[in-house]
């Protein structure tokens, strides 16, 4: 796709690669001239600007659309899927940008492309201002699931609640692997990238298709149960400046919006009739509050102890293991490609060992923090599910709402004013 829009850049930057020069340059007698070779380089700067402008435009229109309109959201979704998904082949992506940001924070030498920063920050800013409008239709992955969604099958609420913690754990692991410069797991295991690129790793492709089939029957499985960026956005959307409301008019408790929500983010009215002694409830909250530091410490310790296993995801550690295993063998018959390349590069074992040990030390440090974070997430969830609150009308759970706008179009109160359209 990029081919058609590539500009030709006369690449002159010759590198100092050692040419072998076994054979001298031929002296041509027939007046032969060297062909002038040029290699196409896409005008990435132009695309970068276009990407950011379109992102901003889509975010603004989505923010405008959630003032009780559903139709524009479909168009926004379509544009996003076609442009960010199929045309840009899924690799200008806010979800993946988390990792670049983490890398930029821990690695001084890494230069963060400004586009990535925009893709990371803009949706967060919009989430802070208007709620998760990015998820609504600007994110190609959310949009794709939204577009194929036909029915709103419901999953048992407690199960969705618990599954809703998975994005946090995924986020924790993402940060760990990015901070240790091992790999970008969000990108590597992106289930939809294969669909956008019309081909790819068959297992992931199958997973992506499976997710899409699920999202035909229930709303957005990926967004709800996996997306780490969604978890981050929910933090900001739950304290959003301008909160999403189902209707400005008075709720008539008709239950239509509740049934229409694909992500189960609408909470029905609840009388909060006491079912246990008040003291019991307070005691439970206090108990979980005391458990919090314990969980954090336990998480930190467990993760720290398993850091050596996890560090095998790091290339240097893997190479070190391979080389030592190879050298321990008495009569090695097959030399692994990695080991061969290691010897040919002339790196010394000490050097490799030092860098592998550094990676392991990194892992020990970061996995401690990540373990603590996981413990914190679990503890907060326990406390959150201990707090009871009374609701008189149908209310949106701002953290879970993806601002898709389904409920607006189902609310009969909204129809009253719009009927002339």
């Amino acid at each position, binding site marked *: 796709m990029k081919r058609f829009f590539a500009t030709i850049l006369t*690449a002159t930057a010759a*590198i100092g*690669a*050692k040419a*072998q*020069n076994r054979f001298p340059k031929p002296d041509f007698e027939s007046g032969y001239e060297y062909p002038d070779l040029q*290699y*196409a380089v896409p005008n990435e700067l132009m695309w970068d600007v276009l990407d950011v402008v379109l992102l901003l435009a889509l975010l603004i229109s989505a923010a405008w659309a959630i003032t009780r309109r559903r139709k524009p959201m479909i168009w926004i979704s379509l544009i996003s899927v076609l442009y960010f998904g199929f045309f840009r082949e899924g690799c200008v992506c806010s979800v993946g940008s988390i990792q670049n940001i983490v890398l930029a924070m821990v690695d001084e030498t890494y230069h963060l492309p400004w586009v990535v920063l925009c893709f990371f920050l803009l949706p967060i800013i919009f989430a802070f201002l208007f709620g998760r409008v990015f998820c609504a239709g600007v994110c190609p992955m959310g949009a794709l699931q939204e577009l194929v969604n036909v029915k709103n099958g419901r999953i048992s609420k407690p199960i969705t609640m618990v599954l809703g913690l998975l994005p946090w754990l995924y986020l924790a692991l993402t940060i760990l692997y990015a901070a240790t410069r091992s790999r970008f797991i969000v990108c590597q295991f992106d289930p939809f990238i294969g669909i956008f690129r019309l081909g790819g790793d068959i297992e992931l492709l199958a997973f992506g298709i499976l997710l899409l089939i699920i999202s035909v029957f229930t709303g957005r499985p990926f967004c709800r149960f996996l997306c780490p960026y969604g978890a981050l956005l929910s933090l900001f959307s739950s304290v959003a400046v301008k909160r999403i409301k189902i209707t400005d008019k008075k709720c008539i408790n008709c239950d239509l919006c509740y049934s229409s929500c694909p992500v189960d983010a609408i909470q029905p009215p609840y009388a909060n009739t006491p079912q246990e002694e008040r003291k019991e409830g307070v005691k439970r909250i*206090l108990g979980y509050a005391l458990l919090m530091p314990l969980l954090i410490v336990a998480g930190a310790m467990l993760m720290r102890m398993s850091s050596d296993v996890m560090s095998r995801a790091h290339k240097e550690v893997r190479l070190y293991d391979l080389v030592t295993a190879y050298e321990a063998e008495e009569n090695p018959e097959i030399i692994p490609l990695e080991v061969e390349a290691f010897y040919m590069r002339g790196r010394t074992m000490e050097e490799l060992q030092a860098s592998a040990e550094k990676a392991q030390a990194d892992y020990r440090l970061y996995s401690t923090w990540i373990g603590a974070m996981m413990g914190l997430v679990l503890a907060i969830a326990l406390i959150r599910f201990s707090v009871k609150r009374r609701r008189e009308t149908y209310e949106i759970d701002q953290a879970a709402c993806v601002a898709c706008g389904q409920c607006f179009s189902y609310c009969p109160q909204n129809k009253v004013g719009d009927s002339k359209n």
Partner: protein
Amino acid sequence: MEEKKNKNINNPIRRKEFLQMCGSVIAGGTVLAAGAKLATKTKVKESDVFWQIDPARCTQCGRCETDCVLPVSAVKCIHANRVCGYCDLCGGYYRSNVKELNTAAENMMCPTGAIERKFIEDPYFEYTINEDLCTGCGKCVKGCTSFGNGSLYLQIKQDICVNCNECQIAQVCVSDAISRVDYATAYKLKE
């Protein structure tokens, strides 16, 4: 959380709003601070955008062909004419130990026949790569680097590459030859 809850116990609505406000302030502050901090990390000119292979490091392990996310790898062999010796017995064109220098299948190195050659003058031949056929397997590169001037080498074609956030080939590259490069040095060419 406990404290606040107890303090505002009599007025749940106000408590909720108060918490909300605190949250908003914290969140807004975080966004601003993080944005400012991260903005210092960006450098438009030097930011690492493309992936590219350093031919000096490449050991032609063959993983470029198999590990690219694209159905046919974005890595292609390119040819530096100015480095080439224009030999008849080309280590990239013919298999090693060839008996006869003709284009019969048993003599050719390239599995897809992507290397074409043209007679220039005795004894010189010009070699060109047909990019549409090239799979980036690096067999010819290995031949040329071991027996010739190293004028055939692998590069990631930026017009084909989808510019993954993390290059899958870089993950498995045995010689760490693939790294991010900036706009100006999209190709690492031999001259």
